[in-house]
């Protein structure tokens, strides 16, 4: 009985976090002198009302699932991949390049483009993992630096080397129709792919030797080393997989939504991945509903602006508050008048720059 109540409480926490964050968001809206009721209606209309709106939610959720799962894979191995953003952007521009440059039949073009996005993202992630494993460079710093480097690099690629001819703005040419991932009615076909991959990652982490190694290294790298596991290899592999998932998310975004690459077309997808990972309590399967929630908020962006007169940055504010509440369950417990945090409830990383 006791165990069941605890489990219930644990699954209640993320829900309570989100609800409370909405309350705070409503207060912010009132402070700005706007109507939170209109905002709620705008979110409903923008994200759920009708197949077009819901399709948009799924479309936004697709790369978010992958970004969230990418961060989760890192966290399992005790690595905090803040670079999901850069890896995702890099995957989306290389996918755009392969997508417009090559002429292939659809059956090859789509999977090949996805693969290129995933592999290039994995390369960036593995580089950070390699620096960590061999040169002791903390992944938080290296991936943040790589984010900025990639932002500049892609800006140059889209504005110079791979720029669409006769364009004043920075953007690549549109990808070939053979590389596009379409939709059936309003249902984006990338979505089931992302869901399948989230399940595959869950299987990898909880049912395979590789996953066991990552979990062990994440829990205690000295014990892992003592047990004969290669901490260095596992670190590179985990960062590689993490970057690959983020890169795949970028490729799907290019092939399924944007159709070309332009700087900032990906927005903050990679950083939303962090919020999703923590909201999902570092569970790959729970990343799916978490990503759908944030996807719904992102999908209602334009409606919020048009119908409720709000600046779309309100979403960033609310997401920050969600992150705060899921990272600090203490606050929710205080609001719900519950005490006794249980050990292992909070995400614990191997912090410090040295270890």
């Amino acid at each position: 009985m006791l165990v069941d109540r605890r489990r219930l409480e644990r699954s209640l926490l993320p829900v309570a976090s989100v609800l409370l964050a909405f309350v705070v968001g409503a207060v912010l809206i009132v402070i700005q002198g706007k109507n939170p009721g209109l905002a709620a209606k705008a979110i409903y209309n923008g994200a759920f009302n009708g197949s077009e709106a819901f399709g948009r939610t799924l479309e936004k959720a697709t790369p978010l699932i992958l970004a969230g799962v990418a961060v989760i894979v890192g966290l399992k191995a005790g690595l905090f991949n803040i670079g999901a953003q850069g890896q995702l952007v890099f995957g989306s521009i290389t996918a755009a390049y392969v997508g417009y440059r090559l002429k292939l039949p659809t059956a090859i073009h789509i999977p090949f483009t996805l693969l290129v996005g995933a592999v290039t993202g994995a390369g960036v992630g593995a580089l950070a993992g390699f620096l960590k494993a061999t040169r002791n460079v903390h992944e938080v710093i290296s991936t943040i630096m790589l984010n900025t480097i990639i932002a500049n690099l892609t800006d140059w690629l889209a504005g110079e080397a791979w720029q669409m001819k006769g364009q004043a703005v920075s953007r690549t040419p549109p990808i070939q129709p053979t590389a596009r991932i379409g939709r059936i009615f309003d249902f984006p076909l990338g979505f089931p792919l992302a869901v399948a991959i989230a399940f595959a990652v869950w299987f990898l982490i909880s049912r395979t030797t590789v996953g066991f190694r990552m979990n062990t290294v994440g829990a205690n790298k000295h014990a892992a080393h003592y047990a004969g596991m290669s901490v260095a290899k596992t670190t590179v592999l985990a960062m590689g997989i993490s970057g690959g998932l983020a890169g795949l998310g970028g490729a799907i975004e290019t092939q399924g939504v944007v159709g070309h690459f332009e700087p900032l077309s990906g927005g903050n997808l990679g950083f939303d991945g962090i919020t999703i990972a923590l909201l999902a309590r570092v569970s790959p399967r729970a990343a799916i509903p978490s990503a759908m929630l944030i996807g719904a908020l992102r999908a209602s962006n334009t409606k919020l602006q048009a119908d409720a007169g709000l600046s779309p940055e309100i979403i960033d504010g609310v997401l920050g508050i969600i992150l705060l509440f899921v990272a600090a369950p203490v606050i929710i417990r205080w609001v719900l008048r519950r005490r006794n945090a249980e050990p292992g409830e909070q995400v614990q990383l191997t912090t410090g720059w040295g270890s």
Partner: protein
Amino acid sequence: MKLSRSSLRVVVAIAVILLVAFAMYNLWDPLKTRAVLGFAVRYSIPLMLAALCAIVCERSGIVNIGIEGQMLASAFSGFFVASALGVWIGIAAALITGVLTGMFLALCAVRWRIDQIIAGTVINTLAFGFTSFFYQQGKTLKGGLPEWHIPLLNKIPLIGPVLFQRGPIAYTAMLAVFVMHVALFRTRWGLRTRAVGEHPSAADTVGVSVERLRYINTSLAGLFAGLAGAFIAIESAGTFQRSMTSGRGFLALAIMIMGRWRPLFAAASALFFGLMSGITNQLQFDKVVDIPAQFVSMTPYILTIVVLAVFAGRVRPPAAAGTAYVKE
């Protein structure tokens, strides 16, 4: 006075910088050299301040990756208060914001024992979200900060105009580097702080309150982050833009590591970063090397990775940084 090995390295570092400066002075015309050095100092001031914040936190055992957010929030509050009530009150607002965000980190890390890297990420995310949401266009500063010329010192050729014709925040930063270096290594507070960061249970045994000291230090270190934000928005740019700190809070962490958690070394590292950026900028501006602007703005970040790849394996951080202290 016997020079210890560490102060010797500072001397060497400064000598190298001066040498480079002298070489540039002879190779180029003095105007350009002055421009490059001026850029280097301007660029390094917020990095020095942010690195001081990072050093005080980590020496006390708290990893602070929220500096970026602290700076951004301070730049935001500093600028908008300054545009309404004047620059000095703006700086005060930035300082208060820095302390409040520092207190929040301390609350997360010390009281709630949340993972410190995640706590820092929360600060960054919240700062980005709120400053974007409440951002208003079209505000301007009523008047800038004064530029103070230090008599005599500003007459030194080359160095004088670069270092001693600056605004109040820049001088505070230069002074703070020396003060904090002495404070960390020569005072009772410094000894206690380092003890709390290296071996909290030992510090606890001799009667130092680990949690209280971490709380106070992390909060007050926010002053430096706040000042860095004020420098960026009020003294340097004179405006606020969304995410205008552009990753400099993270650069500061690399500078802290490169400076081996010592204020003077960190300041030298910051100057090194500034000099490198200044030189690349000037080279590109003069079309000496024809590289796209994006690659120029990439340099400090590539440099950070290279520097860390060289240094990070060889330096030792405070042993207890990143771990919550649980009294037994």
